[in-house]
């Protein structure tokens, strides 16, 4: 009887511990969004935003999570300063009027212990649309220097930039934009 009780208490304690969502703050060295757009149906233009700012919570027992992140639109980097300046103008990122883009989600899909997809809302130029980010890989490791758990992965999604009013150069520069997100969060 005593052992059953001890077992029940231990199980309850384990559940309580597991039910605590873990909080992860994005690691600025490993949290970037890259974009890919097809140029004249020929080659792929790439650029990068970041580092991303934000936090993620994951409750692996409950299979739930939240993410809230901000992207400085003026941080766009293509490797060409003239290109970056053009991207910040009002018919593309409109960085002056809309210095930040956002992604928020409270809907995580899990595959076992790993996050498989995150469904949320992406806001660019004050226009919000649903966006699914699918995990290409997801994992956790103990950071050797920080001695803390780090979870993260690579995610991909797709937007149509015209839907957000960033329509310069279409259709020669494609409407479809592939987003490739590198994200790592350090457990707090």
């Amino acid at each position, binding site marked *: 009887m005593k052992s059953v009780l001890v077992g029940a208490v231990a199980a309850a304690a384990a559940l309580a511990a597991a039910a605590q969502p873990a909080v992860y703050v994005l690691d*600025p*060295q490993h949290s970037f969004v890259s974009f890919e757009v097809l140029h004249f149906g*020929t080659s792929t233009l*790439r650029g990068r935003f970041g580092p991303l700012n934000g936090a993620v919570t994951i409750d692996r027992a409950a299979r739930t999570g939240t993410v809230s992140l901000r992207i400085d639109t003026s941080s766009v980097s293509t*490797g060409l300063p003239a290109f970056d300046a053009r991207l910040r103008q009002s018919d593309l990122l409109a960085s002056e009027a809309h210095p930040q883009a956002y992604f928020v989600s409270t809907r995580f899909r899990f595959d076992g212990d790993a996050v498989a997809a995150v469904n949320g809302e992406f806001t660019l130029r004050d226009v919000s649309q649903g966006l699914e980010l699918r995990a290409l*890989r997801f994992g956790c490791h103990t950071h050797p220097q920080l001695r803390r758990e*780090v979870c993260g*992965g690579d995610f991909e999604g797709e937007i149509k930039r015209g839907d957000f009013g960033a329509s310069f150069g279409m259709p020669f520069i494609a409407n479809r934009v592939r987003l490739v997100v*590198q994200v*790592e969060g350090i457990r707090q």
Partner: protein
Amino acid sequence: MSAPTLARRFVAAAVLCLGGAGVQAQVPNANYAIDPTHTFVNYEVAHFGTSTNRGRFDKKEGTVVFDRAAKTGKVEVMFELGSVSTGVAAMDKHLQSPDFFDTAKFPTAKFVGDKFVFAGDKVTEVVGNLTLRDKTMPVTLKALNFNCYMNPMFKREVCGGDFETTIKRSQWGVNYGLQFGIPDDVRLEIQIEAIKQ
């Protein structure tokens, strides 16, 4: 030397060769100069099996000799390793150090591809050699996209595409961190467009 200058030299050399052979001064190959605004090498390396670190080289120049009818071509692209850009200044600095590229000693990397594989009139592979840290090793680039189009701004034909390959960095003596888990495999994603001269 700028890309167009290199291209002009190449054309001049080709014309000279032909003249010497007693043939009409006509360039047999279409000659293209690399458009540096649409030519980049991006790399991807896995980070602790968790996420993918990316970087890019911003300064480059090069030329392409391309003949769709003869199904031949040659590409030469040179990248400044000091122009590596990851978005993390400390990482860029580390990459330039002797641990990785050692840019003080080896400021550039070069790819020379002299075998173009075609399917119809599309390039599907470019076989060549990559020189990095003074070591030259064979590399095959696979085309993910390839196309030629009339560019409305240049009013000239532009050919280009996306190419990829995965190299083992240790082949070029870039061994830093292999023993503590920084992978040997580096995926290269190459965007290239070249303007007909």
